């Protein structure tokens, strides 16, 4: 297991965590769906929970939501154990599952009203909670619309509103953006950002749409085959990928495209051969008229490379470096293990 990026000492300076997983295990027979997962999150923090399919995200989240119990270890929400005090945990936690059912013969307000009652809200308290959620999710206009006729985007908002209804401290969102169009995604992201910044909630959000999480998460845990592979702030995870070395020798991925034409294929072969002969270059991949490779030089080296490439007569029309995104970090860290 890779050590957490953030040292324990640095983390503890932030006071009591709102969410903590402590050596969490969940086995299904021989399958180790969650295998010794530990991390913490603090109020006002959006934490990404990133992993490929079957990594154990949903399983961990269901344990946090008290829908399942760990085989070993424990998790704490606002200091309450999900094993020993599930009732208290439920009060402080809002859970939005990856898919949730909708009742027939029910409109948006009735839906929210029902969950407000189910969480024991009464009278003015209940009406205020519903009103607040309708305003926050901008569902006011749709208040009388039957919930099983809502679009995917609107029903995700409703789901988010539902898990907000009892004003929980910690929110667990399991792939909330799945199946949304780009606009709905941006809007949802905005809502989630507000939850953390304005309402000081702790949000744990899982996804494999990594570029998205990169923008709203201030920290992330990458999980695969039940184990945490990396954990820390997004910056730290990215830096970790380049080792602890300095900026100068950092490997970057470079992208080159040459002019398409009748003899593009032979030109491409030529370029590939040429690239493989150059120093500081690894992992050359060619497809069509483009080549991608890892380059371990500094800016000066890169400048020289371009110069030489043009001098060698390659018809370069594009030349750029891809900086490591969270997605790349993800691809580098995870190994494609399935179990």
């Amino acid at each position, binding site marked *: 297991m890779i050590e957490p990026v953030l040292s324990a000492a640095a983390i503890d300076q932030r006071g009591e965590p709102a969410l903590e997983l*402590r050596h969490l295990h969940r086995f299904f027979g021989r399958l180790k769906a969650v295998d010794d997962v530990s991390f913490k999150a603090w109020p006002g923090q959006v934490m990404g929970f990133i992993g490929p399919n079957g990594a154990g995200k949903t399983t961990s989240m269901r344990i946090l939501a008290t829908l399942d119990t760990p085989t*070993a270890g424990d998790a704490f929400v606002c200091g309450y154990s999900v*094993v020993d005090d599930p009732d208290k945990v439920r009060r402080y936690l809002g859970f939005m599952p990856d898919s949730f059912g909708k009742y027939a013969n029910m409109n948006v307000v009735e839906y929210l009203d029902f969950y407000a009652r*189910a969480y024991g809200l009464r009278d003015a308290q209940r009406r205020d909670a519903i009103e607040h959620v309708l305003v926050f999710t901008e569902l006011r206009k749709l208040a009388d619309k039957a919930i099983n006729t809502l679009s995917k985007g609107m029903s995700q908002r409703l789901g988010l509103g539902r898990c907000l209804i009892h004003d929980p401290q910690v929110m667990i969102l399991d792939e909330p953006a799945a199946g949304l169009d780009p606009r709905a995604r941006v809007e949802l992201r905005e809502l989630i950002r507000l939850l953390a910044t304005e309402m000081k909630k702790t949000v744990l959000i899982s996804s494999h749409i990594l570029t998205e999480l990169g923008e709203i998460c201030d920290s992330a845990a990458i999980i695969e085959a039940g184990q945490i592979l990396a954990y820390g702030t997004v910056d730290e995870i990215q830096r970790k990928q380049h080792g602890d070395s300095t900026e100068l020798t950092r490997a970057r991925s470079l992208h080159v495209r040459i002019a398409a034409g009748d003899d593009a294929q032979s030109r491409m072969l030529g370029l590939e051969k040429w690239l493989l002969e150059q120093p500081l270059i690894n992992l050359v991949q060619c497809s069509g008229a483009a080549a991608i490779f890892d380059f371990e030089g500094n800016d000066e080296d890169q400048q020289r490379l371009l110069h030489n490439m043009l001098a060698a007569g390659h018809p370069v029309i594009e030349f750029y470096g891809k900086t490591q995104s969270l997605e790349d970090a993800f691809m580098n860290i995870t190994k494609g293990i399935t179990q």
Partner: protein
Amino acid sequence: MSAGDKFFHLADYLTDRLNPILVKETRQALKSRQFIITFMLLLTVAWLISVFGTVWYGPAIEYGSAGRAFFVAYYYVIGFASLFVVPFGSFRSMLNERDHNTYELLSISTLSPRQIVNGKLLSSMVQVFIYYSAIAPFIAFTSLLQGFDLAMVTLFLLAGLLWSFFVSMVALMLSTLSSNRQWQAINTIGMIGLLLWQMSAAFGMSAVGLSESIPFDSEEFWWVLVSLLVGAGSFFLLAQQIAISRLTFESDNRSSGIRIICTLQFWLLWGGVWAYAYRYGMAAVHEDVIAACATMSSIHWLIAGLIFSTEPDHVSRRVRRNVSRLGAIRFLVAPWLPGGRRGLLVLLIHVLMLAIFVRLGSWDLWVQNMVLAAALYVFIYVAIGSAIGRLGQMVTPEFRPAHARVLTILIGALGMIAPYLPAAFGFTRWSNAYSLGEFANPGRTLIIISETAYGSGSHNNATVHGVLLILTAIAGVALLINLKAMFQGFSEMASWKSATAAESSSVYAED
């Protein structure tokens, strides 16, 4: 604020005090097509009955007993709505929660499983009440006719109402039992069959009841009525508790509630017998009644005991911590706490009690022998099941309680046919005489014991003693096999402490 708004706020205020599920289900029901159709259908049919009935009777309606005939017709109409439509609705509504993935969100709200079950039940009660009030004007109309008996009508309406609550509760309970979607179509068809069968049985019985005059002044009548009410009430509670347990998380205590209700049922039955004996003298309670009650009790504990004693022995940390809060009392109430080992304890207590009750009662020897034999059988079967459960768990963790239960039933069935196999394969001759080898067939054996009552010659007390001796010996072995486990049922609780931080972070604390 408009009048409408005011009404809305008042309704809000009032419904705040109600079960949230009730509020939601009622709102949904009032919007649902099924409810509206049933309601209109009910009104139409009742109206048609009134019109055509009146025409058909003509002037004869003034005398004769038209009132009773009209009442019966309306009673069947309301019966269809309250004994079929509503219970089926509550069955579906619970299944739908699971099917449509709405149940999980409900389960992590602050609603308890009890509130959820009660909410579903209450909302079907509300529907039944609405149907009853729709039919009320028609019943009022029959009261103007000859042959209308207020006492009888009240009794039947009340009985119908209570029976519909009971049926709805059982339907709800059954809907919590199946979690396997593949079976759902079959379960639904089975449920429809069951409801139709139950409804026609209820109609048949009320037809008989309605054709006779009710002996309100007979004490016997009230004894029967109260026994039926108490009995049905106890099974209502049992069904409710089973539904609650099924909705409770696996890691919570799903067992104690059911154990307590089964104990309560046992005491109600024998408490009733003793109360009757106290009122009318021991001689008034016939041996046959004791034999019947003992048979019921034995079957009851055979089923309950088999379920309790094959529960997994592994008790979750959550339950252990809650139990440890009981302090020293936990050792006193151990048989009612979850876990298979303690399940066998609770069974042992009750079969012992059954045998002791009957012995105390100074009834005839045959009934004492019969009850003793029944108690021994129950203990033997359940002890076998318990042992199989533990053995299976040792072999593979995949071994589920259901496997142990099925295996035990198979062993029991094998025992029943085994004595006849030699004759069936022609090794020996068929013989009508009871042989001791037939002890493995409880049905035949118990009948043989009961036949000694009337001194019917062929079977003497020696045979009975022989059988009892064999059964006692086997029960002794069964006890020995399970003794260690039963002792552990007590002793393991000594180590249950409230979970400490150290425990919860230790990785293999659960194993």
